[in-house]
């Protein structure tokens, strides 16, 4: 059987693409580089939108990236069920592209923050979280200046009601996110966005003091293999 192929997108200013590709590889899948300026998803089975400062994030994080040729392909594919994971800047892009509701705004503390963060997995039924248990607490790094999740009251209520809050900060909210939200999913559960960085927590030697990020990649692999 061929290895599952997971696309890793590079925009101008993307920073965590090599980490994302490494995490995909360590999990046993094949990372496929995707370039923002191509109208081409290269037939991948899933897509990882990594973190960074695409276009410098000068305007709003993710605002410019979401108009790239690649996103023209990715948006309909995601709507049709392609599994997509956006972390940090990738999450911001998914929100800007309206694949996920709400928006990410300046951290409440007004500073960029890099730290190891406790997170509770609230929903273990998405394409990217099935290898976790609901209620499981994990540790992943966060590193961002604009990660405060906001949405209007109705949207928030709907997210909570439908179990679409996938991750919540525990042991302190790093950015003032509403309802301590760290990550959410779309209605179908194939598109997941979160601020923390699973790709920085897959090896003992480097990165965060945990390998809890591996669960994201084993989850998607199982799903692709069983599909």
């Amino acid at each position, binding site marked *: 059987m061929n290895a599952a192929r997971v696309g890793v997108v590079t925009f*101008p*200013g993307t*920073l*965590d693409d*090599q*980490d994302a590709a*490494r995490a995909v590889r360590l999990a046993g899948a094949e990372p496929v580089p995707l370039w923002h300026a191509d109208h081409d998803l290269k037939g991948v089975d899933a897509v990882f939108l990594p973190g*960074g*400062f695409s*276009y*410098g*994030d*000068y305007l709003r994080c993710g605002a410019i990236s979401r108009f790239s040729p690649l996103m023209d392909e990715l948006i309909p594919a995601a709507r049709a069920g392609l599994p997509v994971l956006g972390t940090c800047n990738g999450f911001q892009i998914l929100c800007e592209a309206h694949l996920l509701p709400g928006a990410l705004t300046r951290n409440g503390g007004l*500073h*960029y*923050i*890099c*730290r190891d963060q406790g997170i509770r997995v609230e929903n273990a039924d998405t394409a990217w979280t099935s290898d976790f248990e609901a209620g499981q607490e994990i540790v992943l*790094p966060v*590193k961002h*200046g604009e990660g405060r999740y906001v949405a209007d009251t109705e949207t928030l209520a709907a997210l909570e009601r439908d179990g679409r809050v996938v991750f919540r900060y525990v042991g302190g909210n790093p950015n003032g996110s509403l309802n301590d939200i760290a990550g959410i999913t779309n209605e179908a559960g194939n598109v997941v966005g979160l601020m923390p*960085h699973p*790709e*920085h927590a897959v*090896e003992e*030697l*480097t*990165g*965060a003091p945990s390998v809890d990020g591996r669960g994201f990649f084993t989850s998607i692999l199982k799903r692709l293999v069983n599909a």
Partner: protein
Amino acid sequence: MSLDSVKRAAETPDEPMPYAELGMKGDEYQRVCDILGRRPTGSELAIYSVMWSEHCSYKSSKVHLRQFGTKAPKSDALLVGMGENAGVVDIGDGWAATFKIESHNHPSYVEPHQGAATGVGGIVRDIMSMGARPIAVMDALRFGGADQQDTRRVLPGVVEGISHYGNCLGLPNIGGEVVFDPCYIGNPLVNALCVGLLRKDQIKLATAPGPGNKVVLFGARTGADGIGGASVLASATFEDESQAKRPAVQVGDPFMEKLLIECCLELYQADVVVGIQDLGAAGVSCATTELAAKGTGGMTVDLNLVPLRDPTLRPEEILMSESQERMMAVVTPEDIPAFMAICEKWDVPATVIGEVTDTGRLVMTWDGDVIVDIPPGTAADEGPVYERPFHEPAGQAALNADGPERLPRPEDLRETLLRLLGSPNLGSKEWVTSQYDRYVRGNTVLAQPADAGMLRISEVMPGAEETTRGIALATDGNGRYARLDPYAGAQLALAEAYRNVAVTGAAPLAVTNCLNFGSPEDPEVMWQFAEAVRGLADACKTLGVPVTGGNVSFYNQTGSTAIHPTPVVGVLGVIEDVATRVRSGFTTEGLRVVLLGDTRDEFGGSEWAHVAHGHLGGLPPAVDLEAERALGSVLVEAARDGLLEGSHDLSDGGLAIALAEACLAQGVGATLSLPGDDAFVDLFSESTSRALVCVRPEAFEALAELCGRYEVPCYGLGTTGGASLAVEGVFEIPVAELRETHAAPLPAIFG
């Protein structure tokens, strides 16, 4: 509008030129006239004045810095030494590392955010220009007193600038320093370090060989950044039309720099670059003269072709502009299309502005007129060299005589420890470091608060050999020690950085340095400088680590009051198998805690004297480089043999602070007893050549044996475990209390 062409200069030999306003001395100006056989044009004067400035020509420091070469230890690792954009060392398995530290002090005082940000940007371009991929940054920072008003303006801005620029580039920040002392109040020190990796067969140099090759300027467009001096020129010499005040502040665009990094690496990969130079201080002047001087010797440049952000710029302003995020490459005509295609892919503007020649002249035109026609080497390499007078400062002997012996020593050592641990210099730097991304690129093995940053080497360059190796880096400096004795102070800075690298298990290999001093025109400052350089060069020789490059920052003074002389030293080390790295502090329960090295009664310049008494006098702790080297060997071998479970160096605040930090690393306490008979000296003396390690009980014998072999004294202090730091008969402090105390000072001041 009249243009000061070479022709016009020849016709108007007596026209007065504003050389003094540009910081040039009369005899320097006369030398330019002698070189050219006529008066310089405005544009030529622009070039010579920046190239012969202290900053670019090292005219006051050169005669001293030579010692780094003449006293350099023999080292097979050195691939590129001083004089290039950055030194390059062989780190094994076909890999090379390039690293350098540089100051951006004054700009960071004027506009903290942009000053610090562009400091990072500048040093990163230096590393890129060697053909390397930048892989990490560090920042050594010094501010006025933590409670002084202006520190509240400068520190948050500086940290934000470094955070924004470095994070946006995707370079992990793996270490640095934050030091407070009132002597830096009007002169904060912002020293930024960058390290890069490359295949050792792919080093690039700043050279423009091959007549007919094209000169390409690429990156950001040129604006009026940092050309205060040039506007003097433009308005004083010529009928001015729009000589509005030009800004001194350079603004950085990290996004453009990130594109430049990726673009350069693809250019190197495609092998379409003959020579390359970053544009830093002195911009186009520096890049063209240096490239031409190191190449075939000649170059033509059409300045009209330089892409401008501000279309009103005059040629002499273009020559002096310090606009950021620009590079200059020399490319063969055949490779130009491929070069341009890569730039286009990365959205990086690129323009051919000239050509390499073999005429021995750098010739520039503007609107068809020749406005520069000079031998480039005279600007780049043959600047003035001063043997500035120096003598020991008047108060030096009195300062050294006023030792810490007269200070009353404390009864309550618990309180003393907490007071030191909660002081701004020894408290947690997390307020700063949590604003820096330490994870990006996924190769960070150690970062703050470890003693040194460490990176594994992997996947950065196609075609490179796989390796288990890693590199470690630390920077250190102690202005108080250097004030008491600049010769020893520089050596102590080196010794501490060396030790910080060694405690992680990496073998120290090479040195970079940033020498921050007051005015070289003050003979007392010049003495401090000369002593520091002599000390550092001597110590590098003894420790066997060559200086590969660095930077000198003079004029860090307000009125006639200079900062403490502050040599900041960066050491790079290599660990053969990065998996054997030693983590910081007490990593788990049930380990034997061992103190390596001897403790003497040494408090001159110490944190205790500073915090408890506001006292600075006497002599700094004795330097013992042989002991330092032996300690380093023990640490590196012990790590390699898997003996060490944790380690930490002893420095500011002595054993007491090292123990507290070791407990805080993983929240593991310890129960210990002291080796000596004076608990105060044991705990707070700052004797050098000491480190703390912890080992599994069964490994203790092997460690002791190893120490015996290198004649490193070794004392078992006790065992890790429990929730407090208990020192028998002295105090017991809960780790939680240590943590609270340690975490408090910076948030209390900066929010």
